[in-house]
């Protein structure tokens, strides 16, 4: 191996791949049989974290950053004047194995710019995964990007080697896509997604009958949307997201605040801050949908097309629905406990277990770890003391805000301060 050349390629192709947020390595079930190399048995591991605080679990690279498309939001777009490089299949295989054996990574996340056409690109990605599985006996995690427009046969083969497949729809609305990526249409994204979904269902049902059926993309599919590149509302983003969870049985939808990389007038200018607070609120909403039993229509709708930035979406919902409170911690069913602001699912679980032994009071609840500053206004427990004063939603909100400090408080103040330098880091 020519290490200097590999190093250069790695720098270019890791740099180009970093805008893909997903680094999940969980949810698979590949065990290590016959003393071979590796496993990925459900629990993901972050082997390190970048200086921006993101998990590094996989070797995340592009096979090449040569691309025939010219999507405005993408750093690899054809018209962008950047250094181009391409890995050979064997180079990716060797690098993955060497990193894996040293416990640097959980596996490989391979994506690519589209050279020649969709199928030629997808074929090369599948070739890497196949070599890892069949020649190196590798049982670690493999995440392959499904190339928009790739054929059904290739997608079927890809799922046999990969743990997860993903297509990034990138722009939440169709009109946005038309504006920023005129050569792409939404159907190209949906086609491989639909194929993978159907294969997953089919392999699962066959496996029930015939045990030797191979596993197909055991960690499922995911997708990603760029936030803040095309003037979409939070409702538009989250309704799209809910649609993908429902229709395509996505394991995850990722939200990626747009990082300005181009002087294109259709996009936010270079130097515009990455909308990290908005991204955070969207993830909170995503969690409410997936784990807390909320319906998207309760949180975002015609009257409320955007999330509030100064309070979390659950608190925001609660303030609009004060008639549903207070909730009695010692009696309420799980579904209602999960709706109390400041009480997470872990605490809900603990409360349900602990209240079998005794009635819980404020002290118990504090020790269990619920966020009292918010929760206390929405609940009663085994105590005569409780917040009995009837307050309006606006009063409650200002009371809660005055008693807490947000890690994003700086972001709020820079929004007011027009003349502050652009370089100010927003979350410290």
């Amino acid at each position: 191996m020519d290490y200097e050349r590999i190093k250069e390629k790695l720098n270019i192709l890791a740099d180009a791949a970093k805008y893909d947020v997903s680094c999940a390595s969980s949810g698979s079930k590949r065990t290590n049989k016959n003393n071979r190399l590796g496993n990925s048995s459900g629990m993901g591991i972050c082997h390190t974290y970048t200086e921006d605080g993101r998990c590094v679990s996989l070797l995340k690279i592009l096979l090449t950053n040569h691309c025939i498309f010219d999507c405005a939001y993408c750093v690899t777009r054809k018209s962008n004047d950047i250094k181009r490089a391409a890995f050979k299949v064997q180079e990716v295989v060797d690098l993955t194995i060497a990193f894996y054996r040293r416990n640097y990574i959980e596996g490989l996340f391979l994506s690519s710019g589209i050279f020649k056409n969709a199928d030629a690109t997808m074929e090369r990605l599948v070739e890497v995964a196949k070599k890892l599985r069949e020649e190196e006996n590798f049982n670690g995690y493999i995440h392959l990007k499904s190339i928009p427009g790739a054929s059904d046969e290739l997608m079927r083969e890809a799922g046999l080697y990969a743990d997860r497949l993903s297509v990034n729809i990138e722009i939440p609305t169709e009109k946005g896509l038309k504006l920023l990526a005129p050569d792409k249409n939404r159907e190209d994204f949906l086609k491989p997604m639909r194929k993978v979904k159907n294969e997953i269902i089919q392999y699962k049902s066959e496996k029930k009958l015939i045990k030797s059926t191979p596993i197909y993309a055991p960690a499922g599919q995911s997708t990603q949307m760029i936030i803040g590149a095309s003037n979409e509302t939070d409702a538009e983003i989250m309704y799209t997201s809910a649609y993908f969870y429902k229709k395509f049985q996505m394991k995850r939808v990722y939200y990626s605040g747009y990082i300005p990389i181009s002087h294109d007038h259709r996009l936010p200018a270079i130097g515009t801050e990455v909308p990290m607070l908005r991204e955070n609120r969207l993830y909170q909403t995503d969690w409410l949908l997936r784990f807390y039993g909320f319906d998207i229509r309760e949180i975002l709708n015609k009257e409320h097309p955007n999330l509030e930035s100064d309070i979390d979406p659950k608190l925001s919902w609660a303030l609009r629905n004060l008639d549903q409170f207070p909730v009695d911690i010692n009696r309420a069913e799980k579904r209602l406990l999960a709706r109390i602001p400041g009480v997470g699912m872990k605490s809900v679980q603990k409360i349900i277990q602990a209240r079998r032994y005794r009635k819980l009071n404020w002290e118990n609840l504090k020790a269990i770890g619920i966020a009292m500053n918010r929760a206390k206004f929405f609940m009663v427990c085994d105590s005569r003391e409780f917040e009995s004063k009837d307050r309006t939603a606006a009063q409650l909100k200002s009371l809660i805000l005055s008693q807490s400090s947000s890690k994003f408080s700086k972001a709020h103040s820079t929004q007011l301060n027009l003349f502050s330098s652009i370089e100010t880091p927003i979350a410290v």
Partner: protein
Amino acid sequence: MRKILVYDGSFDGFLTAIFDVYDEKLTDVTIQPKHRSTQNFFDTSSEVVTDEKKAHRVWEGISKACSKTGKTNIYRAFLSELDGIEDTLFHFIKRSLAERVDVAKDYGDAEILKISKVVKMVGREKHRMDAFVRFRQTKDGLYFATVSPDFNVLPLLIKHFKSRYADQQWIIYDLKRDYGIYYNLQEVTTIVLENSDAFRSNSKNGSFFTEEEMVFESLWKNYFKSTNIVSRKNTKLHLQHVPKRYWKYLSEKSPV
């Protein structure tokens, strides 16, 4: 008068101490390991002689009274080596044996909530080791890593590393407690190195490791740099996930 039972620090020793408490019908008692024992003027102390048979009997009793989680919790919390953890565990064991129901989830009991928190801390440290172990290949083909975890988590690592790196020989060595685990392609055994001091400094130890090793380390460092998004820099979050005390074992965080 309070009585101190001093045991040798092993899990069997701790269980033997519990046997002695019941055997001698002690009421005002505290259990301490030898290396952390504190005694004042009013205490009397006696040494526990570790006895596998007694330990086994206590463990059997606990097994009957506790759920599986309760049992794992006892072992994991014990590995924390925190001051006073023995007495907290004894409180839990005493309640389990007396009440004959599973009390592991009675989080209204402060001591039991404490156990669940300590178990979480130990679990987190174990998970960190799963992540932060960095193997380097020695000239004789062995993959070698040093760690110094906050808690004694090496016994909890065996299963994961054995089933993942089944086709390579490896050693994970705890420099703080001066012992390691070694997988020889068949089984995992405990070892103590005579020259473990040689690995203590973060020197590259050119004499032990292959030349290729330096190359992969530098490729990994390069990757770590390239995958960072500068405009999203968030040092607080970074440090929360990778506290500084672990940096000495992470090649991507070393300055050279």
